[in-house]
């Protein structure tokens, strides 16, 4: 066999691999026909792509779920991460991004629909739609859920340390009125976020979180400036650490971060003020130019499964919009959220307001700049 090239062995290896791959593919197909009973979470297998690209926030998905989906349905999910809605929109808007599934927040869904960047969902392919909490559907940014379905959500309220309060500080007055706030001078923080800090002040003054009236904003600005002397500072990056380490005893906070703090220090609890707090939702959506929309819909359906939905929230510590998943959440998750008072009842839900963004909300930047400059 002198005529064979010197690397004939690598050729052999290549052919062997190809044969094996072919056999594996056939084997996969065979399994699909025989194992129909437990494969109804995979939709129509003949239409599935071999992989999809998923653009998600970092640390916002249990890797085990991706592995299970790959084993069960034979679809590999490549996950990439972004750190702000604006970055993600820029990438999708450039076109031909290659992503099949993205996770925009509420207002970002609205922006993306307006710019024609999202594809209409075919709910026939997403029967688990029925698992979703009806009161978290048909929201302002996508009134008929034509383009997006809820993924995970959270709230903004007041986190506090039980050891320092006899009764829950259930009013924004506790962090904004100087008489009350200065009782814990230097041990209080507000979120370093123009929409959240200014929004809370507006809410306390009896206006909407989204109010854009300049006079109302002037009042909110004065209130924020007067409370500033009592604060430890503005903190939205590691308020969970300062709460758990008792460097602050009360903070305007997001529910998910507070849950993390509660898991470390059981004195940390959470309350939505009587005046009301904010609510946000991250959503599953498919870009207009997604290469594999059908497979993406099957994956959305998979994520909305009761079991998988519970697994997801057990991992993220955020709230699940999946009613069927709620009873399946594990004890640790439940303990922390019950203990921390983060469970959102219908009564509390009615007090929460969505943060909307439009051409007038630029005023929040001005107000916030004025507050921080003092």
């Amino acid at each position, binding site marked *: 066999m002198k005529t064979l090239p010197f690397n004939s062995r690598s050729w052999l290896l290549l052919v062997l691999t190809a044969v094996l791959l072919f056999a594996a593919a056939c084997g996969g197909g065979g399994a699909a026909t025989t194992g129909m009973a437990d494969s109804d979470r995979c939709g129509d297998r003949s239409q599935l792509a071999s992989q999809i690209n998923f653009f998600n926030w970092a640390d916002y998905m249990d890797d085990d779920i991706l592995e299970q989906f790959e084993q069960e349905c034979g679809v590999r999910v490549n996950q990439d991460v972004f750190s702000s809605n604006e970055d993600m929109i820029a990438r999708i808007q450039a076109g*031909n991004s290659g992503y099949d599934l993205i996770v925009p927040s509420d207002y970002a869904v609205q922006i993306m629909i307006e710019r024609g960047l999202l594809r209409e969902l075919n709910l026939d392919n997403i029967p688990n739609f029925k698992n979703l909490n009806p009161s978290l559907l048909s929201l302002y940014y996508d009134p008929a859920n034509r383009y997006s379905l809820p993924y995970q959500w959270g709230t903004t309220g007041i986190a506090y340390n039980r050891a320092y309060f006899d009764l829950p500080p259930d009013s924004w007055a506790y962090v904004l009125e100087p008489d009350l706030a200065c009782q814990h001078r230097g041990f209080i923080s507000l979120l370093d976020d123009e929409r959240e800090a200014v929004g809370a002040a507006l809410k306390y003054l009896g206006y909407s979180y989204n109010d854009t009236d300049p006079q109302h904003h002037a009042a909110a600005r004065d209130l924020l400036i007067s409370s500033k002397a009592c604060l430890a500072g503005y903190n939205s990056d590691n308020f969970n*650490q300062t709460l758990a380490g008792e460097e602050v005893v009360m903070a305007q906070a997001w529910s998910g971060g507070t849950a993390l703090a509660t898991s470390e220090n059981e004195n940390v609890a959470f309350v939505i003020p009587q005046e009301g707090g904010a609510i946000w939702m991250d959503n599953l959506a498919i870009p207009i130019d997604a290469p594999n929309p059908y497979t993406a819909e099957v994956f959305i359906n998979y994520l909305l499964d009761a079991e998988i939905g519970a697994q997801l929230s057990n991992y993220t510590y955020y709230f699940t919009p999946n009613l069927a998943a709620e009873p399946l959440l594990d004890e640790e998750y439940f303990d922390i959220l019950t203990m921390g008072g983060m469970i959102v009842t219908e009564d509390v839900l009615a007090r929460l307001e969505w943060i909307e963004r439009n051409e007038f909300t630029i005023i929040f930047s001005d107000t916030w700049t004025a507050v921080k400059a003092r």
Partner: protein
Amino acid sequence: MRTVSSPPANRLLTAGKGLLWLNMIFCFLFLYAPIAVLVAFSFNDSRLAASWQGFTLRWYVEVFNSRSVISAFQNSLIVAFAATIIATILGTMTSLAMERFRFRLRRTYDGVLYLPIIIPDIVMAVSLLAFFSLTLGWMNSLLGLQGAQALRPGLATVVIAHVAFNISFVAIVVRTSLRELDPMLEEAAQDLGADEWTTFRKVTLPLIMPGILGGALLAFTLSLDDFVITFFTTGPGGTTLPIEVFGRIRRAISPEINAISTIMLMMSMILIIVSQIFQRRSGR
């Protein structure tokens, strides 16, 4: 007392020395205290508390068990190696052309070469994003590719982008070692009958090799650390380590991030030290 008898000039000198020492201590403190804290807390046995709770390696274990971190790490290495090799070859060729030849627009080229170093990352990133979406769009319509087959941004575009900014850095480092090279050596080789290629291979290249390696290591480090340009030029399956880390901070600054940062820091530091050793040798 001895100080009383010493002349005033001498005293000034000792005072100056003391200040120099103070200056050095403060410099090191400013530079390295935050890093030391970061590294220390990567071994802290608590997810949140800012106080020391005991030594643990569990964050490192979790990092190495995370599928997303491992794949991001692989991507970072692939990009860094590919971009470094290409940029080093192109950068060395560029610096040779600039130092050894006279051609039209040489001065313009010289100025343009520095641009990637001077212009802000974000400007370069957005222009590359626009460039790739345009050219890939043209190529797709030219080749009739669409849907899952279409060409799109990914690791390859990241490599091209990194090559684009790394060429300048390599070229500058190599040029300094070329300038210090005695042209007589090359002339002597040619006098002795070596043709241009042999001269380059046997004389020039070995002499500027430390500069080339120094430039390559610099390119490797820059490529490994880059966030802004990578984020805007990457695509599906192209998440690198800095992108993964930056994304994770949004949720909570957890000790896992400290662990990843410590690993990256170690790698960068080793590379910088090696690169400095090479540059020092080329300076000799």
